[in-house]
C-alpha cells in the first residue's frame, strides 16, 4: 500500500498539527487535489495529493501532532506489485540495493562530522591515527591532544580496531537507541506442545498465537511515541520476523498476518527469507512492524529478553523446545514444552496487559 508521509514543510520544521481533512477514506483523488491542512509553527498550509488514487486509510485526525516522515494516509494499492512507494520522501532510496543502512526499525542519523583543530589533525596524520574512530573528550565532542595520543598508544599495543559496517553498524545504533529509551520488562512461561502432530509448521503456529494474543489485548499491537508520550493502537498486525544472516540481523515485516491463510503466510515468509538471504530485500519491507517475533529456538536457548525496538511496544521470543516428565490422569508421560518470552515496554503497557496477551498466546499454542 503506498503511504504518504508528512513532508518537510519548510525550513527545518519537524512537526505539524492536523487542522482538517478535505477528503475521507474511500475517496478517489487526483494529483494536486487538496488533501488536508496542517499547521506548523510558521503557517497553516494545504497539502495536495502527490498522486492519483483512492484513499484507503487516514492515520491521523484533526488535533494530532505529526512529525515529518510519519504516515498521513495510505492509498489503495497492491502490496505485492511494485507500487508500494513511500511518497513524500525527498531522499528516496528505492532501487538502491547496495546500501546497507536499513534494517531493524528506524534508521538513525548518519555519521557525525569530526571536530578537531588543524593542529590535532596534523598530529593525527603524523601518528597515523584515523580521527573518525575517536570519540572526542573536548568541548562539544571535539578531539583533544590527549585523545589522539591515547588512541595512538592503544593502536601500538593492541592493533587497529575494525569499524562496524552495514547491517552490523545499523543494528548497533538501533539497539543503543532502543536501549536508551525503552523500559523493558520480561515475562517467561512455557506451554506443552506434545499434542502437536508431526510436521506442524511451528512459525505459523506462533504467528496464529500472536494474532490471538493481539485480539485479547489490542494494546500490544501498537506504536508508542516516547517524545510525545502518545500511543497509536494499530488495527493491522504487521509482524516483524527476526532473521539471522551471516551479515547480521534483519527483521523483515510480514504484513497483515491476521487476515491471511496458512499457505499465503508460508509463501510470504519464504519470500521474505529468500529476499533477505539474497540481500535483495527493499528497505520498505523492513519498516513499519507493529510487533515482532524472534524464533531463536531454532538455534538454541530457552528464555531471553529480546529488545523492543520503538515505536513497537513488545516482542515475543520463542525458545528451543525441550522434553520433561509430564503428568496426565496420574500417569507420567514424555511431555514437550515450548518456552516463551515476552518483553514489553513498560512506558506503553502495564504488567496486566502483557500477562493477558501472553496468556492468550499460550492458550492458542495449547489448542
Amino acid at each position, binding site marked *: 500500500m503506498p503511504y504518504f508521509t508528512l*513532508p*518537510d514543510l*519548510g*525550513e527545518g520544521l519537524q512537526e505539524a498539527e492536523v487542522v482538517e481533512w478535505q477528503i475521507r477514506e474511500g475517496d478517489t483523488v487526483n494529483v494536486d487535489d487538496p488533501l488536508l491542512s496542517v499547521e506548523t509553527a*510558521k503557517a*497553516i498550509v494545504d497539502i*495536495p495529493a502527490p498522486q492519483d488514487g483512492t484513499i484507503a486509510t487516514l492515520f491521523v485526525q484533526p488535533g494530532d501532532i505529526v512529525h515529518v516522515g510519519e504516515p498521513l494516509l495510505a492509498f489503495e494499492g497492491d502490496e505485492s506489485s511494485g507500487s508500494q512507494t513511500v*511518497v513524500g520522501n525527498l531522499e528516496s532510496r528505492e532501487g538502491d540495493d547496495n546500501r*546497507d543502512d536499513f534494517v531493524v526499525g528506524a534508521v538513525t542519523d*548518519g555519521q557525525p562530522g569530526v571536530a578537531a583543530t588543524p593542529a590535532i589533525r596534523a598530529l593525527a596524520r603524523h601518528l597515523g591515527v584515523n580521527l573518525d574512530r575517536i570519540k572526542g573528550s573536548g568541548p562539544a565532542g571535539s578531539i583533544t591532544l590527549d585523545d589522539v595520543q591515547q588512541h595512538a598508544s592503544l593502536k601500538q599495543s593492541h592493533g587497529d580496531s575494525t569499524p562496524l559496517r552495514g547491517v552490523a553498524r545499523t543494528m548497533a545504533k538501533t539497539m543503543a537507541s532502543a536501549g536508551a529509551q525503552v523500559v523493558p520488562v520480561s515475562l517467561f512461561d512455557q506451554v506443552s506442545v506434545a499434542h502437536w502432530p508431526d510436521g506442524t509448521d511451528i512459525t505459523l503456529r506462533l504467528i496464529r498465537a500472536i494474532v490471538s494474543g493481539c485480539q485479547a489485548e489490542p494494546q500490544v499491537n501498537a506504536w508508542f511515541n516516547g517524545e510525545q508520550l502518545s500511543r497509536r493502537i494499530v488495527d493491522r498486525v504487521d509482524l516483524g520476523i527476526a532473521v539471522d544472516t551471516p551479515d547480521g540481523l534483519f527483521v523483515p515485516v510480514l504484513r497483515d498476518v491476521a487476515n491471511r491463510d496458512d499457505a499465503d503466510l508460508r509463501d510470504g515468509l519464504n519470500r521474505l527469507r529468500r529476499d533477505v538471504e539474497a540481500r535483495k530485500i527493499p528497505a520498505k519491507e523492513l519498516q513499519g512492524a507493529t510487533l515482532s517475533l524472534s524464533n531463536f529456538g531454532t538455534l538454541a536457548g530457552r528464555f531471553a529478553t529480546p529488545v523492543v525496538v520503538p515505536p513497537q511496544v513488545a516482542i515475543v521470543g520463542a525458545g528451543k523446545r525441550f522434553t520433561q516428565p509430564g503428568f496426565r490422569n496420574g500417569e507420567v508421560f514424555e511431555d514437550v514444552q515450548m518456552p516463551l518470552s515476552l518483553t514489553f515496554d513498560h512506558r506503553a503497557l502495564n504488567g496486566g496487559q502483557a500477562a493477558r496477551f501472553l496468556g492468550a498466546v499460550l492458550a492458542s499454542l495449547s489448542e
Partner: protein
Amino acid sequence: MFTRTPYECHTRLAVDGQWHARPGDDRWARLIEGYRTMALIRQFDKKAVNLQRTGKLGTYASCLGAEALTTAAGQTLQPDDYFVPYYRDQATQYLRGVRLEQILQYWGGDERGNDFPADAPAVRDLPNCVPIGTQLTQAAGVATKAKQRHEHTAVLVTCGDGATSRGDFHETLNVAGVWQLPLIVLVNNNQWAISVPRRLQTASRTIAQKAEAAGIEGFQVDGNDLPAMLDALDYALDRARHGKGAILIEAMSYRLSDHTTADDASRYRKASDLHAAWQREPVARLRQALVEAGHWDGDQEKAWLEHCQRQVDEAIDSYLATPPAPATDMLDYLYANLPPALLAQRAQLEQRTTGGHHA
C-alpha cells in the same frame, strides 16, 4: 515615448484589459509570446508549490503576480546583456534559456540547477540570490567591468521593495550614478517584504524617487502590465547599452502568494486586499487585451494550457528522475584550485559517500 516620472505609474492596459494606448501592428507577436510565457510560468509556479507541499522540493519562493514584469525583463534583455536576479525571476531565467527542471533543481537544493546551459544567454547571468540585496552591489561590479571593457551591454538587476531599505541598494544607486554604469535596477514592488507592508518600509512617497538622490533617472511602471513593462525596459536597457547611464525602475505589482512556502500570509494580509489585487493581476489582464484585439481566442488558450501542462510535467519528471549530485560537489565549485586543507577533506568526503560507509 511614454511618461517617465517617479510619481506617476506608466500604464498601457487598464485593469479590465482595455488599452490606454494601443500598440502598433508590429508589436502583437511579442505580446503573444509574452503571454504564452506568463501562462506557462504561472502553471509551473503552482506545480512547484505543490511539489514542495508533497516533500519533493525544498522551500520555494513563488512568483505568482510577478509574471508580467519578469517576462518583460526576459523579452527585452539581449543575449549579450547580463541578468542578476533575486529570487522571483523564474520567467526571466526561463527566457534566458534556463530549463524549467533546472529551476526546480535549484529549489530542490541541487546546485546543478545553477549550471546554466552553455549555449544560452543565461550563461552570462548570476544565479538566484536569496540574501536580501547583496546581488545589487555585485551587479554594480558586473556593470563596472562591462563598462571598462567597452562592451555596449546592459546589466539588469532585480530586487524586492524590502531590499530598498538596505545599504546595498543605496550604495549601488550611488556608484551607478557617479560612475555612469550601464545598470538597470528593477524593483519588484510587490507591497510586501515577508510580512512588512510597503508603508512601513520607507517614508518616501515612492521607491522610484530614491533615484533622484543618486543623480540617476527613476520612474514607476505598472508591473502588472506587460506592454508598459516592455516600454520601460526597452527604453532603459537601450540607454544603458549606449552609455547613457543607470536607471531605477519601480514596477508596481502585488505578491499574490505567500512570501515562500514557509510563510502564511493570511496571518498578516487582509483577505480584501488580496481580493482587490487579484482584480489587477497581470495574466488575465493581458489575455483580455489580446482577446479584445482579436489576437487570442478560447481555442488557442485551451491548446496552450495543455501544452504548458505537458511541458511542466516533463520538466518535473526530468527533475525527479535526476540522481542526487555527489556530495563532493559542495567543494568542487568553491575554488578553481582547491587549497590543500580542503583537498584532504574532499578525499575524506569522497571515501565516506562512495566507500560503503554509512552516509
